[in-house]
Every structure is written in structure tokens, then in C-alpha cells.
């Protein structure tokens, strides 16, 4: 018998690499590739679960589920548009807010560690279960006696001493376009949710700012650039690639907590309409991906890569 051909050292190393990634690869095949395929299949069929024997039967129904989702379902289209609009409003706000905050936190100042610790608290506090419980209790309160926590949270937007309508009318008189004004007012009203959602983004931006070589700022200073110019000519282009990372993260994150996902969940596990739920999941995923590709493509064209 012929002796088995020995592998070269390089081949051996590449085999080792495959061994290292093997667990993930198997998981990816089982949980992602197979699941995506199944979700696609469910969307085109009526699924009945056999309670006695276990298992499920699929009866192909063609496009019926899609028809129901788009033409018959009461809230799907509305939920989808709300999710998309919320996301489109939030993404630029969160990105710029977190970049701004990262620039403030990046400087050395006394008490830096305390402030940073506070700023990353939202990652902890932004827990699904806790906000659910608080929503529930707010619903039970039925708008009657407002709790102190809500009262205190609301003070950011309006207090008795501070009349926001006055400010708005002042800006109206200035002749600012109404659409821009609406956006700004909306942004101020959402400050809570924006701060809550930007913890991770601030971390990423701080890391990005730290990776900018100090010599660049030195050169800018020697050439006589002002702070404003330095920001637009040095800082902004250097963090541009990480803006993409953050935008992707923000979009995915805001979609996982959107009304569409809740709808898909309740349709599947409360109403047991698995086919329809799959349609909801698929459509919202496709919409997310299209938006992702569009926005990332748009930014990428304008991105400057240092390396």
C-alpha cells in the first residue's frame, strides 16, 4: 500500500485554523443557514403543529401569507413604517450625539472615570425586562398620579418653570423652516431614548479617537488650523470608518426593539400563525438589509481610509 502523503507545514497550519473556527462554523450552519432557509419555507406555507405526535406539517399556500400581511393585516404596514421612520430619525441623532460625547469624554479632566462610568450605565439600565416592567406599571397607573421617576425623567423635556412652547414659537418667528424645527423638537423630546441607546457607540468612538495619531493634531496646530478646521479636516475623516460601524450597530439595535419584532413574536406565539409571523420577520429583515446597504453604501463612498 502506498504511504499516505504527508501534509506540508503550511497545510497543517491551515488545518489547525479550520479546527479553531469549526465550532462556530457548525453553529452557523445549523442555527443560521438552516433557520433562514426554514423561515423562507414557512413564509410560503401554512404550518400546523401536531400536538399529539410532535412535529409539524407544511401545506404550501403560495403567496397567501404575503397577501394577508400586506392587504388584510390591520397593523403590520403601520408598525413597519413606524419602525423604519423611528430608525431613520434616530440613526443620525445617535451617531452625532455619541461622536460629540466621545470627544468630550476623550479629553483629560478631573473626575473623568466617574463621568465615564455614568455614561456607560445605560448599557446596563437599557434592559428589556426592566423597561417592560416600568411600561407596565405606567400603564396600570393609567396616567393618573405620575411617579417621581417619570417626573424626574420628564424634567429634561419640560418643567413647570420652563415653557417649551415659548421657545418653539420664538424659533418659528425666526423663520426657520417648519420641517427642520419639527426635527429638532423631536430630537429634544427623544433625548432620553437617544442617550439610552448610545452607550456602545460612545465606547466605539472613544476607541476611535484614541487611535488617531497625535502628530496629526500637532501638524494642524503648527499650520495654524483653528479648532473647527481641525475637527473637519482631521478628526472627522479619521473617525469616518467607525461611523459606518456605529451606523450598522445602531440600525440593527433599533430594529431588534421595534414594534415589528413584537408583532412577529405575538403572531407566532400568541396567535400561533407561524406562516404570517415568518412573513413579518422576512419582510422586516429584508427592509433592514436594504436600508443598511443603502446607508452604508452612501457613507462608504465618502469615507476616507487612512491605511
Amino acid at each position: 500500500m502506498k504511504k499516505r502523503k504527508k501534509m506540508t507545514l503550511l497545510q497543517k497550519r491551515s488545518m489547525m485554523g479550520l479546527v479553531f473556527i469549526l465550532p462556530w462554523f457548525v453553529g452557523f450552519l445549523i442555527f443560521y443557514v438552516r433557520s433562514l432557509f426554514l423561515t423562507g419555507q414557512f413564509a410560503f406555507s401554512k404550518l400546523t403543529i401536531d400536538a399529539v405526535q410532535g412535529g409539524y406539517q407544511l401545506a404550501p399556500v403560495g403567496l397567501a401569507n404575503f397577501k394577508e400581511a400586506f392587504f388584510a393585516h390591520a397593523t403590520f404596514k403601520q408598525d413597519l413604517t413606524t419602525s423604519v421612520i423611528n430608525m431613520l430619525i434616530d440613526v443620525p441623532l445617535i451617531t452625532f450625539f455619541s461622536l460629540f460625547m466621545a470627544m468630550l469624554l476623550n479629553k483629560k479632566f478631573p473626575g473623568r472615570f466617574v463621568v465615564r462610568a455614568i455614561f456607560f450605565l445605560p448599557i446596563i439600565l437599557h434592559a428589556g425586562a426592566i423597561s417592560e416592567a416600568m411600561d407596565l406599571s405606567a400603564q396600570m397607573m393609567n396616567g393618573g398620579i405620575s411617579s417621581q421617576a417619570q417626573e424626574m425623567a420628564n424634567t429634561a423635556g419640560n418643567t413647570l418653570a420652563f415653557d417649551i412652547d415659548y421657545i418653539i414659537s420664538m424659533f418659528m418667528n425666526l423663520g426657520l423652516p417648519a420641517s427642520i424645527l419639527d426635527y429638532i423638537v423631536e430630537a429634544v423630546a427623544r433625548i432620553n431614548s437617544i442617550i439610552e441607546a448610545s452607550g456602545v457607540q460612545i465606547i466605539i468612538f472613544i476607541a476611535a479617537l484614541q487611535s488617531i495619531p497625535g502628530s496629526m493634531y500637532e501638524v494642524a496646530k503648527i499650520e495654524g488650523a483653528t479648532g473647527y478646521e481641525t475637527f473637519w479636516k482631521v478628526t472627522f475623516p479619521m473617525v469616518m470608518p467607525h461611523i459606518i460601524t456605529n451606523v450598522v450597530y445602531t440600525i440593527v439595535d433599533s430594529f431588534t426593539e421595534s414594534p415589528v419584532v413584537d408583532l412577529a413574536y405575538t403572531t407566532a406565539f400568541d396567535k400561533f400563525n407561524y406562516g404570517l409571523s415568518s412573513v413579518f420577520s422576512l419582510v422586516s429583515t429584508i427592509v433592514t438589509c436594504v436600508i443598511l446597504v443603502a446607508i452604508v453604501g452612501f457613507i462608504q463612498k465618502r469615507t476616507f481610509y487612512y491605511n
Partner: protein
Amino acid sequence: MKQKAKQKVSFKEFLNHTKAALQDPDQRKSMGTDIKNLLVSILKFLILVGVSYVILSPVIGMLAKSFCSDADAIDPMVYVIPKNPTLSRYALAILRMDYFPTIARDLVYTLLTTLMQLFICSMVGYGFARFNFPFKNVLFALVVVMIVIPSHTIMLPLYMTFKEFDPFGLATLITGAPINLMGTTIPMYIMTMLGCGVRSGLYIYIFNQFFRGLPKEIEEAALVDGAGVWYTYFRIMLRNAMPAVITVAVFSIVWQFNDTFYAKLFLISPDVVISKKIATLQSVIANQDKIMSLTLQELYLDAGIILILLPIVLIYVLLQRYFIEGVERSGIVG
């Protein structure tokens, strides 16, 4: 009288001094920058304090309310600091949530999954960072795809898979029927072991970036000294990747502890995942203790929320210094 005169003189002196300073262009410029810098730092300070307040205010509110007694809760004069602080809210919340056994089980579950995440994700990240194999770039693109795909897209098939868990027909062969894993934590462990747990894609990405940044010479030295691949990875590379390990550990602990999506999907019992108990705490207290006043019910809910946040905040405070430094050095950013 005398004092006043003295003051007047000093003020005059000051005025003269300022005038002189203003006439000299160099000094004027430096004074202008000084004032500008002062104003800018005051503005920064105000912004930081303001945003910190927005973040902290709900927590302060809950903390304050959880100590309020019955009388304080309806007393309009009480704001933030209760007049007669009481611990009875905590006592009842601990009793009704079965707090200590539950939190212990939850922490064991969270820490176990975190250990698995660390082990698997660092391994995969290392594999991608240091080895060359066919289709490496395509496979790494799949990791990014995994981060991007929202997990709700695959929730139904996951539910089906674990409801009738039957790997390669083994379960049917042994017990005669597929196993129902719903209501246990096993699905989560299985998914984490196969690198598909809560946000595993992100962790793989972080580890990959970090290992790519480490100098190759360390490994070469280890190889020359006769260390095998596994020895190098466990004893040398993982030790050097401590910042990345801490970053991922904090993320993983926090997100796993807060996760409700998978906990709901796999119907994991509230006895293991304490965050599920908080959703029912208010009605449990209403039904079992006959506390019908919504205002009072909320005080117990606040105490419950504080209790649930407590361990995770403690872990965070202990690790946060390493964590932020770790994020800065681990080059999430590459």
C-alpha cells in the same frame, strides 16, 4: 472708612492694570483665550452634568421611592429624600421574588454562558486572525452577516429545533421520541457552545481585531521553544489578550443577564432568569399581599428593579476601569 478707600484704590489699580493689558496686543490675546477657554470648559461641564442627570435621574427616583414608607408615598411634601425611610419594600420584594436563590441561579447561568462565550469566541477570533485557510475572507464575511441579521428572523426555526430536539435522530433512537428542551437553559448553552449565543458575532469580531494587533514574534518565540498550537493559544495568546477578554466578559455578562429575547423564546423559567420575574412582581404583590393601591405597588416594583440591577452594577463598577481601558486598547476599532 479706611478699608473702603483701600478697596477703591485696589479697584483703580485693577482697572489700570486691565487697561494696560488691553492696550498691549499680546496680552490682550492671551487674556481673550483664557476667558474663552474658561467659558468652553464651563459649557462642557454643564453638558456633562446635564447628560449625567438625564441618565441618573430615573435611578435616583427609583432608589428614593424604594425607601419611602406608606405615609411618604402620598405626602406631596416628600421629594427625593423620604421622611421615614423603611426597608419593608425590599423585604417583601425579596420574599416574593424568591430573590437570593433565584439570583444565585441566574448568576450561575450568566457566568457559565459568559465563560463559554469567552472560550469559543476567542478561539474562533484567534483562528481567523492567525491562520490562513481557503475561503477565509468569505467565512469572516459570514461572521459580519451574523452580526447584522436580526435574531428575530431565525426565532421560529430555533423554537422548532429545540422543541423537538433530535440531533441526527439520536434522541429518537435512545428514548423513542425527540426531547423537548423548552423551559430549560440547555438551548442557550448549546447555542453558545456553537458560537451563536447572544451577540457572539460581535465578540468574535472584537477578539479577531485584538489578536491581529498582537505582534507575531510572541508566537514565533513560543513555536521555536517547542510549544504546540493549543499551548500557545491558551497559555500565551489568551494571557496577552486580557483587555479584550475583560471587554467581552463585561459585555457578555451584562447582555446575557439582561437578555429577554432568548429567555422568552426558549420559555426559560423565571426561577432561573430573574429579569422575567420583575414583569410579574407587581401583580404577584397585588394578589398575594392584597396591596391594591397602585402607588404603593409601584414602590415594591422599584425595590425589585433596584435589587435586580444591584449585582450587575456591582460587577460593572468592579470591572469598569479595566473595561474602558480594555476597550480603548483592544482596538474594537482595528
